């Protein structure tokens, strides 16, 4: 069990609401100590999966395991959860609210209070502890919500859209906290639609679509999967004309301000491309391009059913 310590496993989760299949055999594993993003289009089943982890949605089949064991009430008191639709008592003071939540998760009164003060300081809520939640700005309510998820020193963080509704400063603060918690060894799973942010922040992601996993891996791995790309810029050729007769070795994907992005079939072709570029003029830029996460995402969830899944080789997708 030692190796399973801090590992969150979703195994074959199925849930149907009437005619709607929310989860269709969803399985993936979240390792500890990594900022782990959970992606998928609207209605993919992210929220249902997260609610299954924290135990507020019952599953038709499947199991959630924590430290190698089926997750139970005891383990769930070690989860910090931020629901998508948020949830705080509007008329309760920040201090009372956070202390109450900490105590519900098993902290002593003194420890709860100390943690409340720590997190309200850390999240920039100092001085607002006596205010009622409804009197705070939306951004500050969001901070309180995060504090509520962190105040009991959870070992597992489940955050549903933690970045939605935050201003840039709030996004930075949230990002810092997530990175810091992951570095401290906490296991975390957070969903987001802000792919650029996720790409920047996350070490690993899981992408789901229609209740199933369609891709999983580190951001690095996913970016390098599929076809190789290179970006080349030849000085003075803003239209990228030099690339026009590369047929056979590379395919032009796009040209922006003279930078030509090419898709290659094999790594070896890159040298041939470089030779061509040199022949056309001085090469100002030449490098392999990772796929953006947004591209990975688009490819993974497609527009319809995916006959060709560009990241299928890396994703542990089980398309039964």
């Amino acid at each position: 069990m030692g190796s399973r310590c801090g590992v969150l496993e979703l195994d074959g989760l199925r849930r149907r609401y009437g005619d709607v299949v929310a989860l269709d055999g969803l399985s993936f594993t979240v390792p500890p100590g990594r900022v782990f993003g959970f992606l998928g289009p609207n209605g993919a089943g992210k929220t249902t999966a997260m609610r299954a982890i924290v135990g507020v949605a019952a599953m038709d089949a499947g199991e959630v395991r924590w430290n190698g064991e089926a997750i139970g009430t005891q383990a769930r008191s070690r989860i910090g959860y931020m629901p998508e639709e948020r949830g705080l008592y509007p008329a309760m003071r920040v201090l009372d609210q956070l202390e109450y939540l900490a105590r519900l998760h098993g902290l002593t009164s003194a420890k709860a209070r100390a943690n409340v003060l720590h997190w309200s300081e850390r999240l920039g809520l100092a001085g607002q502890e006596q205010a009622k939640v409804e009197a705070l700005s939306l951004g500050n309510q969001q901070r309180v919500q995060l504090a509520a998820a962190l105040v009991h020193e959870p070992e597992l963080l489940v955050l549903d859209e933690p970045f939605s509704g935050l201003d840039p400063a709030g996004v930075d603060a949230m990002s810092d906290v997530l990175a810091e918690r992951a570095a401290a060894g906490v296991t975390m799973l957070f969903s987001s639609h802000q792919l650029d942010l996720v790409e920047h922040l996350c070490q690993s992601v899981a992408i789901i679509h229609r209740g199933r996993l369609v891709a999983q891996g580190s951001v690095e791995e996913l970016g390098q999967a599929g076809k190789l790309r290179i970006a080349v810029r030849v000085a003075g050729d803003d239209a990228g004309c030099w690339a026009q007769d590369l047929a056979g070795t590379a395919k032009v994907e796009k040209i922006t301000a003279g930078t030509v992005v090419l898709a290659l079939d094999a790594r070896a072709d890159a040298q041939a491309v470089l030779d061509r570029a040199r022949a056309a003029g001085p090469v100002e830029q030449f490098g392999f391009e990772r796929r953006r996460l947004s591209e990975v995402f688009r490819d993974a969830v497609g527009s319809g059913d995916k006959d060709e899944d560009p990241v299928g080789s890396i994703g542990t997708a089980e398309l039964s």
Partner: protein
Amino acid sequence: MTGHWWELTWLVARREMRAQTRARSFWIASILLLIAVAAGAIIPALVHGGHTTARVGIVGGPAAALSQTAQEAGRISGTTVTVVPLPDVASAKAGLRSGRLSAALVGDNEVLVKQQPVGGTSSPGATLAGALSQVGGLQRLYAQLPPAAAADLARRGIALPVQGLTPPPRGLASRLTGLAVAILIYVIILTYGVRITIGVGEEKASRIVEVLLTTLRPAQLLVGKVIGTGILALTQIAVMVAAYLLLGNAFGSAAAHGAAAGVVLAGGLWLMLGYAFYCTAYAAAGSLITRQADAYNASIPLQLPLILAYLLAYTVLYASGVSWFYHVLAFVPFTAPVAMPVLVAVGAAPAWQMALSVAISLAATVGMARLAATIYERAILRTGSRLKVRQVLGSAR
């Protein structure tokens, strides 16, 4: 259920009490209720005190002594007495029946009144008849001072007997107390029930329930809420009853005197039974709504049975007496919390009936708690449109 289970549940209950007592509306409602109770205790006394003139007939002799007795009795009962000498008892009775006389003092034998008072002469200072009885009795005692005669009188009772031409009203004091008790039970259960509905609705609508249920079982949240609210309700009722008795005594209101103690006890019992029966149902009603604004409407179906029992209580207490229908209501758990104390107040509920109704109510409370917990657990996390009970019971969480 382990100690840990109760520990968390108690945290929920404590938060509930704090949250409710922090709201200004709680104090406004409590103070208004207290004012109503104080008015109920004081006004009857004030109304009684305003009746300050009376004609008292005296029959037999010695007329001077009797007249003086009547005057003195009037003085201590706060009544201005006009003495009317009468030839015989028959004319005294005629005067009482026609209402020309308030009371008649017949020699040193007895005091006649139109209607036999409740509880005899227990409150000499408060009523004219009581004062006549006491003062007349003492007069007689002193007039026949030889010890043997005094002892003989003491054995028969020092105060003059008070005779009514008609039997006493069936426990007017206990009827008044019965009405007060019915009102209080009805108001308290409705007030706190609706608070539970609103509280549960708030937790659901604000989605905090989703955070809470990661560490609490739905049953803990439900039980903690009804216990916390119940403690507040009990505290409030204790304060109200204490205020009623204290003020009632201070102002000499007949409604607060000993005769009605049984009614108050029955009322206290049924308040607890009624709260226990209804509290989980109000929570279930709250779990069905999705918008805070629907909370009150969702609780209305639960209010109707008590409103019915309360309104019909007036007919039982003041008009037609106990109908078979009202008797049935006293055994139905939805209406018994108001109906049974009303029956007790008019003396229409023997002990075995009370016990039977309590047993039915306790059994129904268990059933209601189970049903309500099921509804609550299934509905509390379901958002979207407002849910119907049947819809919830027909599906899993």
